[in-house]
């Protein structure tokens, strides 16, 4: 990149070719006001506050102006100041901005600019427009009274989330941000990711669960990683007096644009399950409370007296906890498994059997945006890996062909080029595709015959041919396999297809922490003497409940009261996600830090120490205990 030299306010600065004047000024700490520009979004050049004087005559928005050799830029002339003050007053006085009653008071870009430009008196009267507040959504309040029409939310929903839910409607003074074609937000195609809210410069879009709990300056900020799924989005966790206020995405400069999903952003705020702070022991229908130490002794003695132990952990825990738990359990001779590990084991087994090389597996999920075709098996990723779903939508909006194959409802219906609904086993469809590719092009009649031989599996020959044709034409296909596909045969056929076509694969499983790839896991006893469940904060897991029901004695360690803890014989408290320190491995195999955002509540201070002591009861020591 060649450097361009030019002058800003009398100061010579240099910038890389292709940058905008605004970017160059930002790098050189020259302040230019703005409302619509946002680094995660394309420049709209709408707010007109960033206008600068170019070569002493032209007035141009600096976010749209590319740097050029010898430009003479003035950012702070009397004239510009006058225009900016006028625009700010227009924006402020034409809508119903009342800072002292606004949730964003203190966190508002418009308010900051009003202070910066010392607008403390107004030339024009208020207009008192009559806007309704839309509070139909579960998490987001949309209030046009505080909207500055910067278009950030619209661009975020389109460019980052790929969902195109928000739009601009109406002309002139009736112009407003509308949802779909004018429905309430709560009844719209919104995915509830909250990205619009995060980029809103004012209080026009705000988080229902954080309202008036404190602005950013009053909160403590912890940079952490989301453990809702294996994408592992980086988060800013805001807490105040030991309470969670809000969570925001941080990877603004990356492909994710700083987005989170409903589970990552809102669920921890909504989830008001009862906290478990004591050990509960149930015997003969009677419930008693024990101290943590007593609970540990109890667990150790029960584990010690049993031969068939199944230990099952949530996939949403840190590597350190998973590690300590597995060691403690193995010390007691238990079989050990983690949510999502079974799928990974199958995958490994299939890969070995068909000699599939690692090169087929992509270790950067943003690659889907570069693919020519995406073949998506199981659209449940819409819920399980929403950020990946956003990449797929973005790709599909930009011309990538998207084929979705699902047993149930296609959650990409409005982005999919070809939506195939086929009941399990999905494997037959893929098998036919493979067959056609292997044997050269078949005619639809041939296929009709074959598929009827296969036994009325409702495979449409046209679907098969369409997939074949698309894959044969393109040079860069990506096959995305959702978590719901857990049968070995489906995996095998899909992998074979990837091998045949030289396609790349993104294979997902339910574990948020991909540390399961390096942990040794195995299938557990289905009806054990003792089941020890280490629950995380992910959704209720049916496998865990079944295990608790089938075991003679069950131990559940959890931070919250749930169906699991209600059924358990011994309940041991654990920490909540935000009370833990540690690491996690994301889907790309990258290690990320999980930081402690809140002090632990209750007796439990460290799960790792707890498991070390539990192992110690069988005379097995590691870690700190060993060093000691």
């Amino acid at each position, binding site marked *: 990149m060649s450097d361009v030299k030019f002058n800003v306010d009398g100061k010579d600065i240099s910038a890389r070719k292709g940058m905008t004047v605004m970017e160059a000024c930002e790098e050189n700490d020259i302040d230019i006001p703005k409302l619509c520009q946002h680094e995660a979004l394309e420049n709209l050049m709408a707010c007109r506050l960033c206008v600068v004087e170019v070569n002493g005559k032209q007035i141009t928005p600096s976010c749209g102006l590319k740097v050029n050799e010898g430009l003479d830029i003035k950012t702070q002339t009397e004239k510009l100041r006058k225009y900016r003050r006028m625009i700010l007053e227009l924006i402020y006085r034409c809508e119903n901005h009342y800072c002292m009653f606004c949730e964003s008071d203190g966190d508002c870009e418009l308010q900051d600019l009003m202070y910066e430009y010392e607008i403390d008196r107004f030339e024009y009267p208020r207009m008192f427009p009559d806007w309704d507040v839309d509070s139909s959504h579960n998490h987001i309040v949309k209030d046009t009274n505080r909207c500055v029409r910067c278009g950030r939310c619209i661009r975020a929903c389109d460019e980052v989330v790929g969902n195109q839910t928000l739009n601009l409607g109406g002309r002139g003074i009736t*112009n407003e941000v509308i949802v779909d074609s004018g429905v309430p937000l709560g009844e719209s195609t919104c995915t509830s990711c909250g990205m619009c809210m995060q980029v809103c410069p004012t209080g026009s879009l705000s988080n229902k669960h954080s309202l008036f709990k404190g602005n950013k300056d009053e909160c403590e900020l912890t940079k952490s990683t989301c453990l809702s799924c294996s994408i592992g989005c980086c988060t800013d966790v805001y807490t105040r007096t030991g309470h969670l206020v809000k969570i925001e995405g941080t990877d603004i400069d990356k492909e994710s644009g700083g987005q989170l999903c409903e589970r990552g952003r809102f669920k921890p705020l909504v989830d008001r399950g009862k906290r478990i702070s004591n050990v509960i022991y149930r015997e003969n229908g009677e419930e008693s409370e024990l101290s943590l130490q007593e609970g540990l002794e109890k667990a150790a003695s029960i584990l010690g007296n049993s031969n068939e132990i199944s230990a099952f952990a949530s996939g949403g825990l840190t590597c350190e906890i998973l590690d300590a738990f597995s060691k403690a359990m193995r010390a007691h001779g238990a079989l050990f498994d983690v949510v999502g590990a079974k799928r990974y084991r199958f995958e490994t087994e299939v890969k070995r059997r068909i000699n599939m090389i690692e090169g087929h597996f992509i270790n950067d999920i943003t690659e889907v945006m570069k693919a020519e075709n995406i073949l998506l098996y199981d659209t449940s990723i819409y819920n399980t890996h929403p950020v990946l779903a956003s990449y797929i939508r973005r790709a599909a909006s930009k011309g990538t062909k998207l084929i979705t194959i699902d047993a149930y409802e296609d959650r990409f219906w409005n982005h999919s080029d070809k939506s195939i609904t086929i009941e399990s086993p999905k494997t037959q469809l893929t098998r036919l595709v493979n067959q056609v590719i292997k044997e050269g092009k078949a005619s639809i009649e041939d296929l009709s015959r074959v598929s009827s031989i296969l036994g009325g599996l409702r495979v449409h020959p046209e679907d098969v041919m369409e997939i074949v044709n698309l894959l044969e034409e393109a040079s860069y296909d990506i096959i995305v396999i959702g978590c719901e596909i857990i049968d070995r045969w489906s995996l095998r056929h899909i992998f074979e297809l990837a091998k045949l076509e030289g396609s790349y694969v993104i294979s997902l499983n339910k574990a948020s922490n991909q540390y399961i790839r390096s942990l040794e896991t195995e299938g557990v006893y289905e009806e054990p003497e003792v089941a020890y469940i280490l629950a995380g904060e992910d959704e209720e897991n049916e496998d865990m409940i079944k295990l608790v029901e089938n075991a003679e004695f069950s131990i559940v360690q959890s931070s919250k009261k749930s169906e699991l803890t209600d059924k358990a014989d011994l309940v041991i408290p654990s920490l909540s996600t935000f009370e833990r320190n540690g690491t996690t491995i994301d889907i790309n195999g990258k290690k990320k830090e999980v930081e402690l955002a809140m002090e632990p509540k209750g007796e439990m201070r460290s799960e790792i120490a707890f498991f070390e002591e539990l192992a110690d009861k069988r005379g097995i020591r590691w870690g700190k205990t060993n060093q000691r």
Partner: protein
Amino acid sequence: MVRKEILICSGTGCLSAGSEEIEEKLMDELWKHELEDKYPLTRAIKRTGCMGPCNLGPMIIIRPEDTFYGNLEPSDVERIVEEHLLRDKVVYDLLVEDKDGHRVEEFEKLDFIKGQKKVVMRDSGDIDPSSLDDYLKVEGYMAARKAIMDMDRSEIIQEIKDSGLRGRGGAGFPTGLKWEFAAKEDEDQKYIVCNGDEGDPGAFMDRSVLEGDPHSIIEGMMIAGYAIGANQGYIYVRAEYPLAIRNLQKAIRDAESAGYLGENLFNQGFDFNVELRVGAGAFVCGEETALLSSIEGKQGQPKFRPPYPAQSGLWGKPTVINNVETLGNIAAIIIHGSEWFNSIGTEGSPGTKVFAVAGDVENTGLIEVEMGTTVREMIDIAGGVADGKDFKAVQIGGPAGGVIPKEYLDTPIDYDSLSEAGTIMGSGGFIVLDEDTCMVDVAKFFLDFTQEESCGKCPPCRLGTKRMLDILEKITEGDGEPEDIDKLENLAETIQNTSFCGLGQASPNPVLSTLRFFRDEYEEHVYEKTCPTGTCKALLKAFSIDKDLCVTCGKCVEVCPVDAISSGEESYSIDPEVCISCGECEKICPVKAISEGGKE
């Protein structure tokens, strides 16, 4: 006897004036007189596009003698058929009078037509727009044939550059240059777009051309497409122009089946197709980048330039966007050459310009004149100010333009002279205002329009114009304050300098231009709380009767619509609380005893 042909104007204006009724009646009469052999219905009556003098509609021309009958009533038809068609006798009392009161026989000799020079409107009103044959008879597609078969791409562009043709959409950018920019781009896919999103209030030039001569636009696009290397054209028309859409659809279909559109045109290996795109009628979509967004199926909002559409336009491909009227000139230039075109108009602005003349003139309608014609000559063509009133100003250029007052009546109409006079050529709005027009009200009208049509993208335009409108309303309501005029100017400056697109930047022009020439009128509204023309009703004062003069004739009592006048023995009196200042009593008073705000 020579077979006669009856042309009936079927432009949107005449249709609403009742031309269809006249046509029906004509057919009935022809049938009645058993003339169907001599005048086969399908050939005798020809529906044409707009003939121009819209206030004379419904109108017909009888050929070959070119006799013009205007303002027809269905009852007149019988006489025309019996006398003119059967006995070859012109029906004198149905002819249109000229300004000296003489009846004019021939269309070309009408006052309204004499001063005009028709280039773009050459075929409109002359041919049947739904007939490809008709178009071919007037050398249709000859220009395309010449360009594609005998000329190099660069030759065509040079010819257009030499002709000096400037964009008729308003800004006046040289068309040849625009083509050259797009031609230079090294891309396989390029587009040519016809901007038919005519949005100025009162303007209907583009509509008339599209309705009356759709093939000429297709031909212009084809030549442009060939010159820049585009094989796909789009015509963007607003949905409010159903007749234009219908005629264009027919024209495209006919041209396709006759081989004038499609593959391998004139056997030269050049493919060209045209598609119609119907816009929802947003004013901002006349702005080229907004128009492209709209064609792409996105919201019609302007985009930042550069890159200009000639480099990166429709779907990121080089795109030339020309106004309807600009494209209407192309075929003529190719046929007659750039020198011929240069001989028309002025040096800086060759050619002609079509104006939609409206307002307080005797004859409204479409007038195509040579560039350089003065404003005064234009008004003469339109028959002068209506009702013998005094001329006050003419508004040119629509919502982005300004007014030209009496002192500038001799301003020649060309791009540069108009901009010196503080207005713009615009797309061709020409509204004549007589002495009874309030200039604040005129500014308010245009601001109301731009304010409502702002796309909402940038605050100066969306909110600033609303603020300006509020102030103008305040002034016309009689609540104007001394600082309001300064506020208008301040807002105007910010809007001009910071708005995103040309529409926003030009939106304060109607206010600034009226302020420039009629500032005293604004000041009278603000300081004296009076409207000199009596237009702003809120500023009118109650009328009163001079007791000394009143003769108690009672005429005022009869005309008063609100019964505000009561009788007395010596004199009548007006209740100021009830009076609505309509002025009817003042007009009728035989002894001039009644005056506005006069002494009791």
